[in-house]
């Protein structure tokens, strides 16, 4: 695998942070694959935009708070991070409410990016 060109891999984060494990195990997959030096991007869509909401407090839920871990994506050179504009708007959020910088994009633009990927991993 090492001698090959980098693959373009996009993670689709579609679920809220808590209530199901998809966002958390999705993050674990992003971090592992980030270590393999592929061309990784992450798109936050639908309830997935809640994953990056600032100032999460999971103490009352008794589950792990992991939104801060997304700040480490930079260390893996994962900087292609997108959020769907309509998903944000529908939930009363803007990019300023999110814990890391994202490129806010129209659904059609994200769809085009998806078309250009080698692998799509939905969570």
């Amino acid at each position, binding site marked *: 695998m090492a001698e090959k060109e980098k693959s373009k891999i996009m993670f689709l984060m579609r679920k809220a942070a808590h209530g199901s494990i998809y966002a958390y195990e999705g993050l674990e997959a992003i971090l592992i694959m980030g270590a393999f030096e592929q061309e990784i991007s992450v798109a936050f869509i639908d309830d997935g935009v809640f994953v990056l909401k600032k100032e999460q407090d999971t103490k009352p839920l008794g589950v792990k708070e992991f939104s801060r871990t997304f700040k480490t994506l930079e260390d893996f050179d994962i900087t292609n991070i997108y959020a769907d504009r309509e998903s944000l708007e529908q939930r009363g959020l803007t990019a300023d409410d999110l814990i890391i910088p994202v490129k806010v994009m129209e659904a059609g633009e994200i769809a085009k990016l998806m078309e250009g990927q*080698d692998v799509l*991993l939905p969570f």
Partner: protein
Amino acid sequence: MKFGILIQDGPYNHEASDSAYNFIKAALERGHTIQGVFFYNDGVYNVNKLMDPPQDDRNISKRWSELGAKGIDIVVCIAAAKRRGINTDIIVPNVRISGLGQLLEIAVESDRLVTFGTG
């Protein structure tokens, strides 16, 4: 075509595991190749050998084991398995536990990665 398969949902509760199995069978019958099957999230429950459904129902873990015996590489994510109490003592024969790097390998070596069960 070379297909990679990612299964993210457990057995019986939803159809994901059955759909993946049927997809693989159909693909093989038509002469396609299965690069590998990777179980992530609740998908890791699919290979629990303690499964003991009523006799008139399909045994999902046995079915995956039989597919593994035919030479299909079936991999269970170690991190997801550890979290859910799945280890080498209770998985069916012909499947293996390994890391997410294997999912990456299956995905990039395949022409298409097909995912089942993110709801």
